[in-house]
């Protein structure tokens, strides 16, 4: 077995040194009737060539995003990631190191985290950000719990524009924690009156921008209303590139920001691993979940970085911790940081403008298709269209014709009466030919 360096001779002499006659003597604490005497009923070891053939065959049954005109978004986005990003994150020193518990020999990881935290804070226009969460959805649930700790209230109000999976995760966690959640109905046209739902028992209001249907939302008035009632505004985003062009949550009074960072540096990868961005105001930092990297000095007075404020964390505080999170999304955060460094402010803004310009083009083209209506007044790189009949069926027919044309809303919100809606994303990877293929395929659906 190519991954196991011990030879049969090593094993023999080491067992001798340890003082056992057979390996099972070392497993003597396992009850004899529970000890397996032979390998389980699974295939035996395979060569690298055999494994790559098997997995290659499975991979070959899937349609890759880059192989077709591709307009699928709704929380995960196809962007071009520069080749150098993947090369750098595969360096052994990043890929195969552990959480930086020994900071003297982990300054590489730690400095990258410090850069990540600063970038995340800048991007969201917030004061501080942590070293990442698993993804946007779990970060949102953690934000709700954090708001409960700060306000000592337990009722969250969720906008109907929040990604349905995010809302499901919040509802699941809140139900288990025996907290209350008020969920507004799905809101494709951003017309809900969420301010009317805020009262003096409300801990937080959760609003996504751009929302699940692609609409841009003004959070400032909601923030004011929250603060007037002693509640917090949690701003959520699923498309980090939007922050290059759209008013950031920090400029609109958000108290906690939870977002998905996959768009920058990370592959689609069928839904994970992704990277949650999590930012807040400085005054709430000790209520924050997750790891934090901080600047300090070493014994010679040189600048260095360490994991800090760990008294919030599970390995110190145990049942009184702010969260149970331990492993986070370190390498995905690194990919984000490297891609963001390559982009810089100028590159990010231009990337965002290209995304928006492409989406505007597509929206105009689709609006001219018979029986297709674009619902959004405003959007970034994603919007919602209404088609005639069953949107899921339309998407299946488009897929059969080699176009992945978006996400039918009914897939995430079955039974919500929105069966004729499709969420359509358009990024810098889409060409004019892609858009034309989409339009003509849609015209051909009957």
């Amino acid at each position, binding site marked *: 077995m190519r991954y196991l360096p011990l030879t049969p001779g090593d094993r023999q002499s080491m067992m001798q040194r340890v003082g056992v006659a057979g390996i099972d003597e070392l497993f003597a604490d396992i009850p004899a009737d529970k000890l397996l005497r032979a390998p389980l009923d699974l295939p035996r070891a395979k060569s690298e060539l055999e494994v790559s053939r098997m997995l290659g065959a499975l991979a070959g049954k899937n349609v890759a995003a880059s192989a077709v005109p591709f307009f699928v978004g709704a929380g995960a986005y196809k962007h071009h990631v520069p080749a150098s990003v993947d090369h750098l994150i595969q360096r052994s020193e990043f890929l195969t190191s552990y959480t930086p518990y020994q900071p003297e020999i982990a300054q590489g990881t730690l400095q990258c985290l410090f850069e990540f935290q600063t970038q995340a804070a800048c991007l969201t226009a917030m004061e501080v950000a942590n070293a990442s969460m698993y993804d946007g959805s779990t970060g949102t649930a953690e934000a709700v719990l954090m708001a409960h700790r700060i306000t000592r209230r337990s009722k969250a109000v969720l906008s109907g524009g929040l990604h349905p999976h995010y809302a499901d*995760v919040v509802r699941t966690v809140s139900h288990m924690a025996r907290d209350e959640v008020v969920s507004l109905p799905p809101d494709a046209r951003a017309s809900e009156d969420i301010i009317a739902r805020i009262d003096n028992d409300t801990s937080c209001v959760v609003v996504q921008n751009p929302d699940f249907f692609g609409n841009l939302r003004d959070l400032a008035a909601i923030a004011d209303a929250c603060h007037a009632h002693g509640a917090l505004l949690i701003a959520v985003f699923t498309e980090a590139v939007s922050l290059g062009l759209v008013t950031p949550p920090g400029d609109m009074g958000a108290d906690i920001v939870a977002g998905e960072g996959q768009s920058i540096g990370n592959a689609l990868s069928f839904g994970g691993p992704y990277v949650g961005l999590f930012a807040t105001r400085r005054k709430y930092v000790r209520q924050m979940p997750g790891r934090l990297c*901080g600047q300090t000095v070493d014994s010679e007075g040189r600048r260095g970085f360490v994991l800090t404020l760990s008294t919030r964390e599970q390995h110190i505080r145990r049942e009184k911790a702010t969260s149970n999170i331990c492993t986070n999304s370190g390498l995905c955060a690194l990919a984000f940081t490297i891609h963001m460094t390559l*982009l810089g402010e100028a590159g990010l803004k231009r990337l965002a403008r290209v995304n928006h310009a492409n989406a505007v083009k597509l929206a105009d083209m689709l609006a001219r298709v018979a029986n297709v209506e674009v619902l959004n007044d405003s959007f970034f790189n994603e919007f919602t269209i209404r088609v005639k009949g069953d949107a899921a069926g339309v998407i299946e027919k488009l897929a059969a014709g080699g176009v992945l044309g978006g996400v039918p809303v009914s897939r995430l919100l079955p039974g919500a009466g929105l069966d004729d809606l499709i969420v359509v994303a358009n990024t810098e990877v889409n060409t004019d030919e892609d858009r034309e293929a989409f339009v003509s395929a849609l015209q051909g659906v009957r």
Partner: protein
Amino acid sequence: MLNNQGRPTAPSEAPRRARKTFTSNRALQIEEALIFEIGDACVTGVDIDEPAPFQPRLGAHERTSAIGLPGLSEPETMRHYVRLSQKNYAIDSGPYPLGSCTMKHNPRLNEQMARLPGFGDVHPLQPQSTVQGALELIDRLAHYLMTLTGTHAVAMSPKAGAHGEMCGMMAIRAALEARGESRTRNVVLVPDSAHGTNPATAALIGFDVRAVPARDDGTLSLEAVKAALAPDVAAIMITNPNTCGLFERDVVAIAEAVRAAGAYFYCDGANFNAIVGKTRPGDLGVDAMHINLHKTFSTPHGGGGPGAGPVVLSERLAPFAPVPFVRRSGGAFSLVEHARGGQAFGRVTAFHGQMGMFVRALSYMLSHGSDGMRQASEDAVLNANYVRVCLSDAMSPAFGERACMHEALFDDEWLKGTGLTTLDFAKAMIDEGYHPMTVYFPLIVHGAMLIEPTESESRASLDLFIMALRDLALAAKRGDTERFTGAPRFAPRGRLDETRAARDPVLRWTPKKPVDEPKTVE
């Protein structure tokens, strides 16, 4: 400054000053500034054409303030991050004997497989007809996990071990709700030797945590568990093998007692690497156990993640598994994404879980096969015992002559009278070119040093490691304290001031003085 486990939190003295160079670099020891100090907001390392003029549809929501993000050209970016990488220790560059972390070799085949376009470049919400291979892979990995653990179901979507714990405990809560007992049973028993995530998880979802005293070796006695099993107990959370590196020898009787008392048995699977193919947790009476794919099945740790924490479930918890899950019918696979009508307790994450980690883990499993996985566990246990025996006269094993599973635990008894602490010893190991073992954990052993060599270390590597530690231990005992108190001297940094970091936290870079709008190229 000492914390309450006797762990120094600030450097005790300034070691000798090395001669300064003009650049502060010294040969391959390099200094690297932050991107905020070397980059510029108008520089970019990505060529993107400005779009043709168009009418924006942003409403009144255009960002007008500066963002503050510096950019670097591609060569500068490469150099910056390569230089930073060189300040890291990694399993590829040396042994990484962190107990309870399972730092084993990360095969590069797995990386290559995860990056196949058919896995890496597929979207979670594509039509299911276009991702049949991805669903088949998840189904096959689930089959492996259930077979290796002897269980009936597996929730694949949790993102990491602690997330899996949460998922498993939620399934338990849901099962209690279905029995109408969720209000009356609200206590979770956690031994005091447990990982911190266990009590944190239980508390996070509203359970009250009640500690169960462990024996001196961290294992639980049937009597202690029985004494704690009251009608208000919902579950017990046990790590097996436990955090002291020992197998819970009364586990079957404990599981039976827990079940008889109407409670559930959650097993923390962080130490599964010791027993893969040797025993099945389901056979031992476990109701739920998360599996850290980034430990046992070698998906890389990446400096702290991402991981993946699927949770296997017993027959009585299986109906409550969260969405989504893959269903097979004939040769076709479908994804059940909504709980309609079923008993699924909800959803713990957007989409379907850590696909990138699933591919790597299955690649590991296919490569090893059932024979190789069993052999890997045996080697991991043999390596740990070899280290334990070869160091037992130089250091103090926490449990005398007793054999361990895949990690060998020492206490700081042998450092008595030397004036040195476990942390001093760990930092001195850095100067010897090793990553230290896990220190001060488990909490129940004073000055704990937990060594997990894994199966990836060769005999020669273990012998060198043992000799280096023996040499250090002898130095400690003969009073050669200089090797310890100033350590590490040869690392990129000396000991870092954690007290200062926490007292006045600096969590982001800020410009030295207020700046105006950054230069732009527009």
